Structure formats: structure tokens, C-alpha cells
């Protein structure tokens, strides 16, 4: 900040150029008004100092760092959301995938409960009476029926990811963590369908896994699109 601050820019000529000087700091000065202001600045040290100081303030302001909120803030938000979630009813239409996500959650939760009830008995697959060839064709058809409906959508979103503004690390980590979980679940249910194409639970679980994967990929694409 200038040492000449105490020589205030307050002569009548300075007053006349005050608006132009403010506009110059804003980068909105009409080029036609630039000449007269420059003339004044050439002969007025006080206004030159004022201009330099105001520009310094503006440039410092533009480079202020974002301030990190306390970590507890997210936990408080989550707690408050949980406390009032019931009476809210379903939210729809958040990029279309918000509601899609909720449906997948409901399906997967119902399924998880079913698996818990059925327990290990589910893994004890009944002996198949099919011939090996027939069984593998049945498995392929079952997988095609389930995966075909999601494959194109997943491929399409995957192609978009990485083309936008990179997602900041904390958000990206949450999403990548969930994606890895979902991929594990998909792989697991896929082998279950291959082992027994008739097992409804395995098919539903694969279906829900793919739906959740699509939700997460769309989240990533949407966050990239709007660039934080």
C-alpha cells in the first residue's frame, strides 16, 4: 500500500477523474475516456498511488483461498437429513438419476433382506438336470437379458467420464469407493447367474448392481459436467 496515502486524492481535478479511475480498476473504462485520465495520472502522484492500491486490493481479493469448513459440518448435515428424511417423501427429477438411484436403493435393500433370510441355503444350488451345453446357453441368455438393457447406457456414460472438469479428490474418492463396491457385487452376482440361470435372487441382484453402477457413473458425469 502506498506511502502517499496521507496525501489524499481530493483536488478538484482528482474529483473529476474519480469515476474514470474506479472504472479503470473494474476494467470497464470506455477507451475514449482513457486519454484524459492518463493525462491526469501522469501529473498526479496521489491518484497513481490510489490506482495502484485499488488494483492490489482487487487482485488480492481475486486470489483469496477457499476456506475449509470444519469436518463435523458434513456429519451434522447428514444427521439433520436423516432426522427429517421420513416426512419428505420421494424427491424426483434430480438430473433424472436421483429418483433412479432411490429406486435402485429400494430394490437392493429388499434384496439384501431377502438374502439375509434365505442365508447360505441359497448357495446350495439344486442339482441341474440340464445338459452342460444347454445350461451354458441358458446362462448366456439370462445374462444377455439382464446386462443388455444396461450395457449400452453404462458404455455411453463411461465414455463421457474424464472429458469434463476433473471432480475434486474428496468427491471422486467417495464415488470411486462406491463404484468398487458395486463392481464387486456385480461380479459376484454374475457368477451366481452363470452357475444357476434360474436363480431369481441372483438375477435381481445383478440387475440392481448394474442399476446402481449406472447411477454412480451418472453422478460422476453430472459433477464433471457442471465443473464443481
Amino acid at each position: 500500500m502506498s506511502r502517499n496515502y496521507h496525501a489524499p486524492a481530493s483536488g478538484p481535478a482528482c474529483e473529476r477523474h474519480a469515476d474514470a479511475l474506479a472504472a479503470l480498476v473494474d476494467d470497464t473504462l470506455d477507451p475514449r475516456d482513457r486519454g484524459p485520465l492518463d493525462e491526469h495520472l501522469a501529473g498526479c502522484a496521489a491518484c497513481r498511488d490510489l490506482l495502484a492500491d485499488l488494483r492490489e486490493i482487487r487482485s488480492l481479493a481475486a486470489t483469496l483461498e477457499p476456506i475449509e469448513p470444519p469436518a463435523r459440518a458434513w456429519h451434522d448435515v447428514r444427521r439433520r437429513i436423516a432426522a427429517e428424511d421420513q416426512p419428505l417423501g420421494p424427491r424426483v427429477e434430480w438430473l433424472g438419476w436421483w429418483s433412479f438411484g432411490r429406486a435402485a436403493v429400494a430394490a437392493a435393500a429388499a434384496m439384501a433382506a431377502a438374502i439375509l433370510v434365505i442365508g447360505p441355503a441359497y448357495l446350495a444350488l439344486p442339482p441341474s438336470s440340464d445338459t452342460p451345453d444347454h445350461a451354458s446357453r441358458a446362462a448366456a441368455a439370462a445374462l444377455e437379458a439382464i446386462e443388455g438393457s444396461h450395457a449400452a447406457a453404462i458404455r455411453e456414460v463411461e465414455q463421457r467420464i474424464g472429458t469434463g472438469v476433473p471432480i475434486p479428490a474428496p468427491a471422486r474418492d467417495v464415488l470411486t469407493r462406491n463404484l468398487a463396491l458395486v463392481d464387486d457385487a456385480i461380479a459376484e452376482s454374475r457368477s451366481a447367474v452363470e452357475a444357476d440361470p434360474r436363480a431369481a435372487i441372483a438375477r435381481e441382484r445383478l440387475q440392481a448392481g448394474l442399476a446402481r453402477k449406472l447411477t454412480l457413473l451418472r453422478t460422476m458425469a453430472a459433477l464433471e459436467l457442471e465443473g464443481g
Partner: protein
Amino acid sequence: MAETQVVHALAPAAASDDESAFEALYRTHAKRIYSLAYRFAGNAAEAEDLLQEIFLQAYRKLGGFRRESALGTWLHRLAVNRCLDHVRSRAARQDAVTEPLGPDHPPDRAGTGPITHLDLERAIAQLPDACRMAFVLHDVEGYEHREVAKRLGIATGTSKSQVHKARLRLRRLLRRP
């Protein structure tokens, strides 16, 4: 993976699917919104309250979000409105019991070195509400005067003069001893 592990892996993910999308939204935008709230309110406690309220409000309003407006822009607009309401209602409460703002505090900047970001943060907190909000939106957040005027419900010329007034005032607050 054994069946029980599958259930355990699936269940927590299922319970938090919706939440993880919202958490990702929070992680992406919380810092910028907290900074805005901090600079509008001038202190950490009110900024934290504002941050929470803004995300709660966002959560409630997500149904009203339209695809054509980018999510970040929508969220930031919601945040500016909430911060603006907060500062205005705080001013209304204070006006009822206190004197109008007096002259600037004496500069509390130590030393004669270059002005730091911290010096500037402290000085911003001392600005009168109206010019502080215009200054934060224009010089810190990078809004055009036209947008500042729209957000604050003032004329474009008023935005220009408020921002200029803020810079002049900051210059006085930041002057070397």
C-alpha cells in the same frame, strides 16, 4: 466372496446410495459455499450454520431442480440468497438495538510487510454489510456487476459504487502504520 460377505458389502452400499450421491455433491461444493458464507457473515460460527442450512435446503429442494441449469450454479444461487437473507435479517435485528456503524476500526495490521490474504480477510469482515456483500460477489467470487446487482436486488450502478466504496475502505483499513 462368501455369501455373508456379499450381504455385508451390499447392505451398507444400499443404505447409502442416495446419500453417497449427496455426499459427493457436498464434497464438491462445501468449500466454496462455506467461504462465501464466511465472508458474508464475517465469522466462522455463523458460516458453519449457514453451510448446514444451505445443504439442508438443497436436499429439500432437489425435486425442484431443473436439468437445464447446471447443478453448481443452482446450488451457488441458493447459497447466495440464503447468505443474503441472513445478513439482512441480522442487520435488521442489530439496527433495532445498536447505533449505526461508526468510523472504521483502527488498522490492526502488524508490521510493514506486504498485505497478506489474512490481512484482507480481516479487513473484509469490518466492512459495512452492503458494500461487503457487493465486494465479495464481485472481487472475490468474480461475478459481473450486472449479476451482483441482480443477486442483491440493486441497480448495476449501485453495485459499481458499492464495490468501489468497499475497495476505498479496505485501503484505509489496510494502510501501513
